[in-house]
């Protein structure tokens, strides 16, 4: 049996090491090393991003109102935030706005829902079967690269100036974003998970249901979020060209009659819709982010 090392009998290392230049550095044996705790985060610190953002937006509106109130340009040309608000209230009182929102909303919901209903299943299919994808890829690339609003004249010829032609434009706008992202989701599936499934004897159908479908969810959500933007462009632009009702048409008419305040009111409505929908989908995306393949 060897003698165990008695640490207490050793010289006070490294305390006894001294060099010519430096005096002995002594670390007292009984000094426990402590660190200073981080200062507590204040409320201000924690909400910094939100606060600065809010202040910036408020400053912008104040400046805008200031420039507008100076009346360098006429109110027809540059209305201030107050004018925009008044125009908005007027539109609400008219009852016109409710109809416009209802029509535009209807177009959006139908067009976007169709895009999701087609884009997701079709994207899953194309992601899963490469040969099918090879066949459809040229068409998808063609349509995705082309601004689909150039098709509006055709849709008006085919479907008239009612909501049908708008739904078609909105649908085409959103469907490719959803389709392409869904395909990407299936294609970027974690290969190690596919190996697990195969190793445990899963059939192709079981692999699809248990791996491909849930694994693509984060990408599908990204597609849906990007689709919102495309769909909203579709709503406004399609109504610009020819329509009976809708926010886009309201803005178009207001614009051609120099009612700039109403144009701004429409702009903020569309922006609000886009922000709200994008925010909701972003929240969902963040929730499912952990599912994305880790690389």
């Amino acid at each position, binding site marked *: 049996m060897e003698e165990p090392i008695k640490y207490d009998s050793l010289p006070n290392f490294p305390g006894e090491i001294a060099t010519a230049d430096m005096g002995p550095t002594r670390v007292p044996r009984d000094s426990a090393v402590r660190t200073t705790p981080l200062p507590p985060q204040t409320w201000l610190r924690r909400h910094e991003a939100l606060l600065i953002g809010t202040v910036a937006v408020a400053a912008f509106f104040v400046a805008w109102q200031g420039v507008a109130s100076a009346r360098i340009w006429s109110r027809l040309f540059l209305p201030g935030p107050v004018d925009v608000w008044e125009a908005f209230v007027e539109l609400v009182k008219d009852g016109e706005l409710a109809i416009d929102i209802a029509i535009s909303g209807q177009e959006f919901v139908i067009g976007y829902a169709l895009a999701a209903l087609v884009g997701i299943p079709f994207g899953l299919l194309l992601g899963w079967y490469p040969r099918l994808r090879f066949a459809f890829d040229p068409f998808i690339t063609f349509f995705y690269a082309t601004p689909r609003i150039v098709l509006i004249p055709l849709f008006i010829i085919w479907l008239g100036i009612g909501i049908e032609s708008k739904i078609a434009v909105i649908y085409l706008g959103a469907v490719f974003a959803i389709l392409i992202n869904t395909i990407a989701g299936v294609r970027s599936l974690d290969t*190690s998970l596919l190996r697990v499934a195969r190793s*445990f*004897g899963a059939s192709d159908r079981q692999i699809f249901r*248990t791996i491909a479908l849930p694994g693509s969810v984060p990408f599908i959500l990204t597609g849906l979020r990007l689709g919102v933007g495309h769909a909203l462009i579709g709503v406004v632009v399609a109504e610009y060209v020819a329509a009976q009702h809708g926010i886009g048409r309201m803005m178009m008419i207001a614009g051609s009659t120099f009612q700039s305040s109403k144009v701004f009111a429409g702009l903020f409505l569309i922006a609000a819709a886009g922000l709200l929908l994008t925010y909701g989908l972003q929240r969902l995306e963040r929730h499912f982010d*952990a599912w994305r393949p880790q690389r």
Partner: protein
Amino acid sequence: MLLAVDGVTFDIADGEFVAIVGPSGCGKTTFLNAVDGLLPLTSGTLTLNGKQIDRPGHDRAMVFQQPSLLPWRTVLGNVMYGVEMLRIPKDEALTRAKRFVELVGLGGFVESYPLELSGGMQQRANLARALAVDPEVLLLDEPFAALDAQTRETMQQELLRIWNETRKTAVFITHDIVEAVYLADRVVVFTARPGRVKEIVTIDIPRPRDLRVKRHPRFVEIETRIWESIREEAARDALAASA
């Protein structure tokens, strides 16, 4: 085409724990994938109980090198995964999955998601998923390679405990000789690529073994012998590569 494994012939007895070691790139994992049925054989046969292996089956289950857990399923859901493929009643599958989650020591983490678990815990779930299928042969592909040294030793000990309770036939791939000697009844040494069986070393260290056995002279003797054997192969491989 690359010839990864060539002329590998050996038998594994029922309930035996076999470890395969060899220089890196010698085709250990390729061999294991073939046993699992994930890779087709160019020639030769692999049989399990006299039946030829040509596709994955429920008589074999793999513990993967990467935990490869489904991130959208809880620990219990992941352990259920293999069992679900068996077409047994749902409640029976659930009881079985729960039993194995318990066995690997994840009883307190049934509802946790993989990303909330440490590497060692993820590998426990990976092991439970394979065991829950109740396979005849358990295939382990360097399951502890990515873990830190302390966790790896804990997991080795845990694996022996669990194996002792289930007594499954096990084929364990590793590049860690100490791990191979500690776990196995026999250690198969592969040659450099294409991998052949160089020698089969019987580990005559009695069970149950605990981690202290790694310091035993007999253990060190066996370990050194296998180390020499692999070193020879690695040198030969390096020579072949530079030629």
